[in-house]
């Protein structure tokens, strides 16, 4: 056997190991969701059941948490995507020297432990709402969770949108201006459509990060609950295959999402390949025309 094949096999083995580590526990957990014993076990497989899904469905606290999680997720999108967009535009226009300080302030929440964000959010809004007399409106679990999560999710959005914005061709903006557009028109007609893919991915990332956040939310949610805090309570109390059932559902949705994404991507690629083909044909026709008839 040549050293090449040995290396290839080693790489293959390593990748299998890596993904085994990544997926193994999830697969085992999924099996336990369909197994009858009340202690979640993959082996021995005593009997197939869907009972744990039913139990999950009847779990009131979890369903309440789910609704709150969705509300919070939407709230986080509404706060952090516009903020991220505004921040990336401001960052793009800000002077060089001020930019690094601004960057540090805005990106620091990404590096701050979530626990600390949660604590600081609660303390600030407790005092602020008291001072301004807005306690009944603002000092609520759902509101604080949205604020706390947005503080770092907005930074994710900033980074995602910024990456796209940096590829924006300033000439596009100038072309629109030159044709008589006002600056706001440039924003709505040219810049926003250009940023659309980034805004969509920022929204998706924002929702997912919000939905699965634990560290910040567990503090910020106060007396309310989200799906994740309910789950945490359940796991702390003991283990039931109903949790595995929930995981199966989430994994299923994730896989469906991944497949949909892949299909969309492929479709887009085919479309752009088709356009490029068209352009190439036109190019050839042009050249032929230019040679035959140098008008």
């Amino acid at each position: 056997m040549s050293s090449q094949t040995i290396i290839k096999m080693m790489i293959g083995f390593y990748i299998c190991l890596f993904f085994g580590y990544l997926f193994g526990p999830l697969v085992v957990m999924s099996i336990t969701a369909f197994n009858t014993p009340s202690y979640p076990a993959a082996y021995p497989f005593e009997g197939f059941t869907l009972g744990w899904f039913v139990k999950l469905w009847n779990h009131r606290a979890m369903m309440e948490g789910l609704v709150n999680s969705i509300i919070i997720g939407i709230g986080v999108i509404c706060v952090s995507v516009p903020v991220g967009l505004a921040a990336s535009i401001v960052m793009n226009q800000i002077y060089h020297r001020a930019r690094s300080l601004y960057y540090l302030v805005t990106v620091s929440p990404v590096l701050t432990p979530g626990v600390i964000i949660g604590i600081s959010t609660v303390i600030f809004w407790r005092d602020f709402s008291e001072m301004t007399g807005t306690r009944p409106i603002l000092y609520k679990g759902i509101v604080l969770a949205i604020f706390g999560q947005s503080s770092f999710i907005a930074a994710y959005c900033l980074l995602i949108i910024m990456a796209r914005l940096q590829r924006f061709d300033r000439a596009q903006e100038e072309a629109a201006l030159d044709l008589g557009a006002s600056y706001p028109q440039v924003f709505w007609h040219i810049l926003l459509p250009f940023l659309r893919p980034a805004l969509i991915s920022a929204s998706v990332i924002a929702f997912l990060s919000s939905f699965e956040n634990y560290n910040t939310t567990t503090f910020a949610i106060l007396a309310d609950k989200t799906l994740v805090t309910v789950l945490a309570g359940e796991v702390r109390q003991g283990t039931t295959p109903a949790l595995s059932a929930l995981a199966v559902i989430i994994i299923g949705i994730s896989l469906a999402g991944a497949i949909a994404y892949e299909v969309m991507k492929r479709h887009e690629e085919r479309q752009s390949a088709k356009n490029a083909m068209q352009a190439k044909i036109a190019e050839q026709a042009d050249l032929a025309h230019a040679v035959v008839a140098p008008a």
Partner: protein
Amino acid sequence: MSRLLVYLIPFLVIAIFMAMARYERRFAHDPTHRGFFERNGTVLGIVFIALVAFWTLFLVVLPYLYMVQESFHPKLVAADRGGPKDLLTLEQYRSFFIQPSDGSVNGTHIWAFGFSLVVSAAVTSLNFAICYPLAYYMAQAGSVQKVRLLMLGLIVPYWVNEILRAFSLRLMLASKGLINQILMGLGITDGPVDFLGNNVGLYVGLSYAYLLVMVFPLYNAVESLDKNQIEAARDLGAPWWRIHKDVVMPYAKPGIASGCTMVFMLSAGSLAAPQFLGGPKTLWFTSIVYDFFFQAFNWPRGAAYAFLLLAACIALVMLMLRLFKVSLGETIK
């Protein structure tokens, strides 16, 4: 009083910002420059500024400052706050070192603090070792399609939330879990191994939780490396480990720094893994902070501890960046 004074700080920062912008403007006159409001229109400009101001002030800066400010206050009932008993004090920080009850050294908390930081550092190195080969393979050897598939394979497990991931590991590692079943079934051990009690669960859980955070920065950094450089090094007869040590790693240093910083910060601040995969005797620092809030209801002390953790993490990260000569700016990008 101190609660109101806090508002001065952001305004000071804004003033510094403006001064810097003015200075720069005078220093480098740029005829292309348009004023912010001219470039965005008045209405949009105001909306942008308002959004950014709301975020940086109300969601980031002021909460931090309030937390710090809270940590210098005594624990009081709501009625006493702002009253004569509400004095600035270092009591909360002192209590980290010396037990306020009996004046003895607070060994438990100091130990938990050190333990959290050391374990986080160890988990960071472990994840680097696990992820580097994969990131390198994806960036340099894999075909486009294969890389996209691997990417999806990496991301999908992270759509399952942290708690359930911890739960799945617990199913593996618990005394009745699959691994113990296998070990006993093969006759390697007689009784179950207490993976959760001896902290193996914690280590695995932390590493498992932040694999992705390490892979992506590494991948991004290695990906932009010109393949010819590696070829050239190989042609010169460099052994594979030297190629990595002398060519790839120096090039990918910002990515390595970024991945390591993220994993370290996240794991030092993690709550789920120690809560669900730690044993009964495991003392993780964030768990202690959590308990101050939810069991002792001592917010000032919790805030002081949280601030200590943040300060220590930042100091450590800065130290590492200095040692490896990477600037913070490079890391975040």
